[in-house]
């Protein structure tokens, strides 16, 4: 296969074709940066197990074929279903373009990126640069000091899945003492292949507190790269829970940078993969100062020919004394053709720290299966119960109670599909 590379002329033409709005300057800068970086290959340590060549080929084909930037029009079925399931203030983003109907909530300022006064958007790594270079729109959410909305804020990201590339951007800023419960749902409304490249920038000022839940249940041909980068000031707190059920290729990068003492990071993730799915979770917790704490747990269930990757990095910088960090990754491997590659990393440059990590890969306990069967359940039921129990551990850590039922229903539906797929 000849490698398809996005070259300068191709990207420049696409950038030029985009409207001359407030983002135009940022796009040109980011395009130059992306051209100098290019898509990372598997020789790059962070992309060792995740091959982006299909995504790049799709991007090239899309860029060459007169890029269509029109968002999907009618999505009422999905929006109704989701809106009724979760009690929250809703925002709609279709193919990366935010809806004009923005809710009016006390203490929160919400605006579209094309209307916002954005002087800079993070574009350090190749995919963030690619994101800005072709960015149409996005959302900026700012919570005023000490404000705490009555209900969660939920964003529904709908993709049209029509052989195209979508960039999506979310900027979340919490002023000192502010609190926010944020839910992101990523769903598809179509059946073609699509690549969505999302970036979320989170800035938490002193004692701000963000609980963030992301549910991804896209079409099986969808490829998604999701990057969340958060910076935490003194006593700030972030709890991030991620649930990956759908998509063909999903890559999540979660980077939390602790810049103030007393900050706390909590990361949880659950990934369910079957068929040919590929789900890659990379997390990085940077303890720049101490004392601060971080706590991380990811769990995965794999069947079919799925491949999942977990790479959890904890970096404790020099002088970050009083760091307390725990990290774990547990995987249930239910098929001989599935593959899990896990790497819990520690990089520690300070001595007054307590860091622990653990990782396990295993299968359902035969004794437990036998126990359930001896009590009259058939093998499939027994498997279902044990697998559900394994996943339930992550459900209980769900940081936004409002979406518990929604996540739980999606989980059960996906589990039923996966357990059918299990070979004995």
């Amino acid at each position, binding site marked *: 296969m000849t490698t398809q590379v996005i070259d300068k002329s191709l990207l420049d033409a696409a950038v030029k074709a985009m409207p001359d709005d407030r983002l135009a300057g940022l796009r040109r800068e980011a395009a130059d940066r992306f051209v100098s970086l290019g898509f990372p290959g598997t020789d790059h*340590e962070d992309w060792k197990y995740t091959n982006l060549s299909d995504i790049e080929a799709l991007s090239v084909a899309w860029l060459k074929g007169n890029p269509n930037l029109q968002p999907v029009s009618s999505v009422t079925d999905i929006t109704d279903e989701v809106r009724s399931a979760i009690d929250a203030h809703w925002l709609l983003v279709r193919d990366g373009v935010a809806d004009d109907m923005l809710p009016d909530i006390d203490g929160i300022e919400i605006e579209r990126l094309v209307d916002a006064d954005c002087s800079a958007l993070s574009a350090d790594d190749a995919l963030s640069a690619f994101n800005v270079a072709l960015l149409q729109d996005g959302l900026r959410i700012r919570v005023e000091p000490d404000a705490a909305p009555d209900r969660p804020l939920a964003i529904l990201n709908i993709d049209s899945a029509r052989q195209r590339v979508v960039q999506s951007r979310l900027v979340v800023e919490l002023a000192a003492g502010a609190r926010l419960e944020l839910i992101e749902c990523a769903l598809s409304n179509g059946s073609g292949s699509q690549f969505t490249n999302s970036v979320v920038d989170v800035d938490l000022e002193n004692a701000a507190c963000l609980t963030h839940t992301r549910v991804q249940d896209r079409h099986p041909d969808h490829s998604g790269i999701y990057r969340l980068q958060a910076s935490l000031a003194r006593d700030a707190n972030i709890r991030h829970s991620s649930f990956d059920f759908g998509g063909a290729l999903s890559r999540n990068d979660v980077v939390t940078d602790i810049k103030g003492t007393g900050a706390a990071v909590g990361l949880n993730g659950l990934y369910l993969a079957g068929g040919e799915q590929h789900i890659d979770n990379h997390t990085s917790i940077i303890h720049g100062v101490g004392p601060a704490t971080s706590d991380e747990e990811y769990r995965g269930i794999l069947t079919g020919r799925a491949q999942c990757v977990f790479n959890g990095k904890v970096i404790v910088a*020099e*002088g970050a004394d009083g760091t307390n960090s725990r990290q774990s990754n547990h*995987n249930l*491997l*239910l*098929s*001989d*053709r*599935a*593959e*899990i*590659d*896990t*790497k*819990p*990393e*520690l*990089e*520690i*440059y*300070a*001595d*007054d*720290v*307590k*860091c*622990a*990590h*653990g*990782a*396990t*890969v*295993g*299968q359902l306990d035969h004794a437990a299966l036998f126990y359930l069967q001896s009590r009259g359940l058939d093998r499939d039921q027994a498997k279902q119960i044990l697998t559900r129990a394994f996943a339930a551990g992550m459900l209980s850590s769900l940081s936004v109670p409002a979406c518990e039922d929604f996540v739980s229903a999606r989980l059960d539906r996906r589990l039923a599909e996966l357990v059918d797929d299990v070979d004995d």
Partner: protein
Amino acid sequence: MSTQQKELESLVNRRYEHGFVTDIEQESLPPGLDEDVIRAISARKNEPEFMLEWRLKAYRHWLTIKEPEWAHVHHHPINYQDISYFSAPKSDKDRPQSLDEVDPKLLETYDKLGIPLHERARLAGVAVDAVFDSVSVATTFKDKLSEAGVIFCPFSEAVVEHPALLQKYLGTVVPHRDNFFAALNSAVFSDGSFVYIPKGVRCPMELSTYFRINAANTGQFERTLIIADEGSHVSYLEGCTAPMRDENQLHAAVVELVALEDAEIKYSTVQNWYPGDEDGKGGIYNFVTKRGDCRGANSKISWTQVETGSAITWKYPSCILRGENSVGEFYSVAVTNNLQQADTGTKMIHIGRNSSSTIVSKGISAGHAQQSYRGLVRVMPQAEGARNHTQCDSLLIGKECGAHTFPYMEVRNSGAKVEHEATTSRISENQLFYCRQRGISEEDAVNMIVNGFCKEVFKELPMEFAVEAQALLNVSLEGAVG
């Protein structure tokens, strides 16, 4: 705090105990590396044609590859043309047949190192194949070994005496194309040990080699090959000390182990090479490729290492668990101090059904040292029922040191169980206080805690090694209270 400061200073000022130079005339090749140098090495060792060809093949491959950069270590670039690739003690032709014939100066060297060769050998029942620089000088207990059919000889001798065995096994575990340093070693290796344990034989004694780099500006390229035939058992000990040097010395050794059906190899290392002075000047670059191949069913390979020396260590003793029910083990204690850097760990490749592996790695980092554990556990699809347990703990002593963990786990079989756990912490004030309260001095308390931390690994070492290792650790960490 002031006593701690003082102790820390005494640690920093501690000189390398084994730093002295034995003045023996060396017959060295001039620095530089090309095909002629390789031909010269091969000719000097009277090697058969196939060995020369093999060396040249490796050299030509080495020219096409780049030095790896992924390790978590930093050093000045190495100029491979500045190194002399061969140095042998003068009396090479007339090999001493017994200890009495060994150059007394050489024996003196061993005495200084605390290895009274003859006494120790008899008392401990250890046969010592002492490698002094690049050529083996004395081999003891040969008779007793040959009675059992065991072949234990310098590599250069094996090339001449046992070419068939060598051709069959050399490079089958670590091929000459394996990596940059293995390719270099394959091209220029000077000597090393060769061990063959025949079918069903339990080696009557522990085999041991002491390495010592002695000539300035001389790279050491040892090559060790150990073959344990069906149902045999061998325990091999390797220990190192080196004299003080100002220029960095490169050591790129290769160790290959082959365990056939029901065979067991235990390979223990205590490495205490010159780590460089307190400014990080000098010291050995220890870039080693060690790998064992559990070829037969029920075979077992066990690596135990205590690494306290070298400026830079880059070493991953690995096991390929090909045989059904084969077992791989890796027990490691690594101590880094001052500006030492170590990037070490293991690879366990599970191919055979029900193969199992255990990894216990204990890292102690003090001063400005940086230490990394880098490990890979790979379970192939056919390795039904594979088991792995990994435990890697780091102890930090001092504000400026670092401890890093990079464990890779790649699992492709649903019947496999893989577990990894790791912790990083410093010696807790509570532990120290508890000991001090009971009248134990701070230094003894630290030693006790550190020894307790490493106990799991020490108990895997052969007895005399365990004693040496414990003493080494106490010396290495004198006064280093965090």
